[in-house]
C-alpha cells in the first residue's frame, strides 16, 4: 500500500479499532494517534453506568491495553488539532506542532449539547460525555442528597439509575410526554417509565426548564410553570453535537456530521472519518445516518482501515446498541425509525423482561430486548436476513425463535 503515514485524530472507540484493523489489513507504515484527553481510548458507555456508580475505574475501561499500541506500533500524541491543511497534507496542533499525514482519519466524536439557560454554568451542573465529566460528577457525591437529571433519553435514564444505586434522590425532567420518545415505541417508554418510578425516581414528563437556580452552586431547577425542583447536582443529558468544525474549516462536506461514502471516505480521497462524527449512507435502511454507537464506530473503522489498505469494503454491519439501567440489560438491534407495527414477546406492563420487535411492511427492522439476550441475537440475524416473521410465532413464548430463522418467510433482498 502507498499510505506510509496514517494519522488518526481523536482517541475514540473508532480510533482503537482502526489501529488494530490497519495492521490486520497489512498497513506497514507509521500510525499516529492524536487525542486531546490524557487517556488512551476508553469505553464511553460505562461512564453513565459502572463508572458513575463507582464499580469501575478508568483503567478498567481502556478499549485496548497500552501493550496493544506498542505491539501495533502506534504512537500516541496528546494534543488538540486546530487545523487541517489538506494542500500540504498536515494537521496543526494547539501547541504549535505540525504532523504530516498521507492518510488522515477523523474520529472526532461528538460533544454534549449545552443548555442555554440562566444558571447553566453554575457549579454542580454537569454534562456526561467524557471521563473528566464522570470524575467531576463522582467527586463530592457523598454529600449529595438530591440530584436532578435533565433529559430522559438513554444518558439521562442511565445516570438516574446510577445515582439511585448510590442512594441519591433523583428527579428526572423531560420535555416530551414520554421517556425515550425519540428512539422507542410507546410500549417501551411505558416500561421504562414504570421501572424508574418503581425505583424511586421522581419522573416529570412534559415539563420545560426555565433556569438553573443558585448563587455559585446549584440549588435547584426552575420549571417553566414556576415550580422549583431542589437539587445539589444537575446532570444534563439532552443529546450531542458532532465535532465537525475541523472538517468544515478544511472545506470538507459536512451535513449533520462529516459526510463520508460507504467506504468511509470524505470528498478528499486522503481523508476519512469514522464514528459519532461521521454521516454515512446506510444500505440496509436506505438513508444517510449519523449514529452514536460503539457498533457503528467499530464497523466504520474496520471499513476505513480496509479502504486505506486498498481493499474493497463497505459499511454494512447492522447497528446495535445497549443500555444498562438497574437490573435491566437493554440490547437494541437495528433502527426502529419508520416502523409501522410493533410485536411484543413478553409483557412489558409487568415484570422486567420482554422484547419489542419493530416491523415495516411485515419485515423485521429493529428490536428492543430487555433481559432477553436470545431475542436480541435472533433479531440481529433476522434483520440481516431480511426476515418477515410470522407475528403469531414471534409473540408465542412456546415458539423457538431459532425455528423462525429456518422458516421460508425470508424476503429476498
Amino acid at each position, binding site marked *: 500500500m502507498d499510505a506510509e503515514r496514517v494519522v488518526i485524530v481523536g482517541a475514540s472507540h473508532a480510533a482503537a479499532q482502526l489501529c*488494530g484493523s490497519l495492521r*490486520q489489513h497489512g498497513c506497514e507504515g507509521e500510525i499516529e494517534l492524536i487525542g486531546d484527553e490524557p487517556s488512551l481510548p476508553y469505553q464511553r458507555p*460505562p461512564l453513565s453506568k459502572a463508572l458513575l456508580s463507582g464499580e469501575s475505574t478508568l483503567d478498567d475501561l481502556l478499549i485496548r491495553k497500552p501493550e496493544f499500541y506498542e*505491539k501495533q506500533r502506534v504512537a500516541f500524541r496528546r494534543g488538540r488539532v486546530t487545523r487541517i491543511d489538506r494542500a500540504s497534507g498536515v494537521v496543526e496542533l494547539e501547541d504549535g506542532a505540525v504532523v504530516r499525514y498521507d492518510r488522515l482519519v477523523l474520529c472526532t466524536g461528538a460533544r454534549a449539547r449545552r443548555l442555554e439557560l440562566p444558571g447553566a454554568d453554575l457549579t454542580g451542573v454537569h454534562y456526561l460525555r467524557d471521563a473528566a465529566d464522570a470524575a467531576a460528577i463522582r467527586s463530592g457525591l457523598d454529600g449529595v442528597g438530591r440530584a436532578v437529571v435533565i433529559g430522559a433519553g438513554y444518558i439521562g435514564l442511565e445516570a438516574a439509575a446510577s445515582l439511585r444505586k448510590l442512594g441519591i434522590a433523583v428527579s428526572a425532567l423531560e420535555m416530551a410526554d414520554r421517556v425515550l420518545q425519540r428512539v422507542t415505541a410507546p410500549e417501551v417508554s411505558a416500561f421504562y417509565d414504570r421501572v424508574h418510578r418503581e425505583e424511586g425516581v421522581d419522573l416529570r414528563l412534559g415539563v420545560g426548564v426555565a433556569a438553573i437556580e443558585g448563587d455559585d452552586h446549584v440549588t435547584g431547577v426552575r420549571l417553566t410553570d414556576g415550580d422549583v425542583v431542589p437539587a445539589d447536582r444537575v446532570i444534563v443529558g439532552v443529546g450531542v453535537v458532532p465535532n465537525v468544525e475541523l472538517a468544515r474549516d478544511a472545506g470538507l462536506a459536512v451535513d449533520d456530521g462529516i459526510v463520508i461514502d460507504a467506504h468511509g471516505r470524505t470528498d478528499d480521497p486522503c481523508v476519512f472519518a469514522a464514528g459519532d462524527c461521521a454521516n454515512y449512507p446506510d444500505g440496509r435502511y436506505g438513508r444517510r445516518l449519523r449514529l452514536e454507537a*460503539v457498533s457503528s464506530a467499530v464497523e466504520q473503522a474496520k471499513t476505513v482501515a480496509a479502504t486505506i489498505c486498498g481493499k474493497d469494503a463497505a459499511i454494512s454491519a447492522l447497528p446495535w446498541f445497549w443500555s*444498562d439501567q438497574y437490573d435491566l*440489560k437493554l440490547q437494541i438491534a437495528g433502527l426502529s425509525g419508520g416502523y409501522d407495527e410493533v410485536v411484543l414477546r413478553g409483557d412489558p406492563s409487568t415484570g422486567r423482561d420482554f422484547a419489542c420487535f419493530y416491523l415495516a411492511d411485515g419485515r423485521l427492522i429493529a428490536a428492543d430486548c430487555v433481559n432477553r439476550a*436470545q431475542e436480541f*441475537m435472533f433479531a440481529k440475524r433476522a434483520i440481516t436476513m431480511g426476515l418477515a416473521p410470522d407475528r403469531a410465532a414471534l409473540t408465542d413464548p412456546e415458539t423457538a425463535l431459532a425455528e423462525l430463522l429456518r422458516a421460508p418467510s425470508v424476503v429476498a433482498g
Partner: protein
Amino acid sequence: MGTITFIEYDGTTHDVDLVDGASLMELATTNGIPGIDGDCGGEASCGTCHVIVDAEWTSATGTRSGEESQMIEMSPECEPHSRLACQLKACPSLDGLKVRLPEFQM
C-alpha cells in the same frame, strides 16, 4: 506465565502470553487477534467474542453460563463447547489452552 493459542477460522494460529485474571477476550484484543472485537468491552452484551474451546480443555474451562448460551445459541456456528471469550478468565491451570474462532462473529 503460560500460553493460550487462538486458532483463526482459516487455521492461522496465534500463541499469546497467558495473563492470570485477564479474560480471553482481553488477551485476544491486546494481541490484535483478527476475528475478536469485543465491542461491548466484556459485558456479554454483543456476542462478538465467540470462541470454541478445544474438546480436551472443556473440563478445565467449565461450561458456558445461561447468559452466554442465550447469546451464542442463535449463532449458526454454535458448537457444544462454544463460549464468549469475555466470560472465560485465564488462570495458570489453562496454560496450553487452545480455542478456535468461528468464521463470523454475529
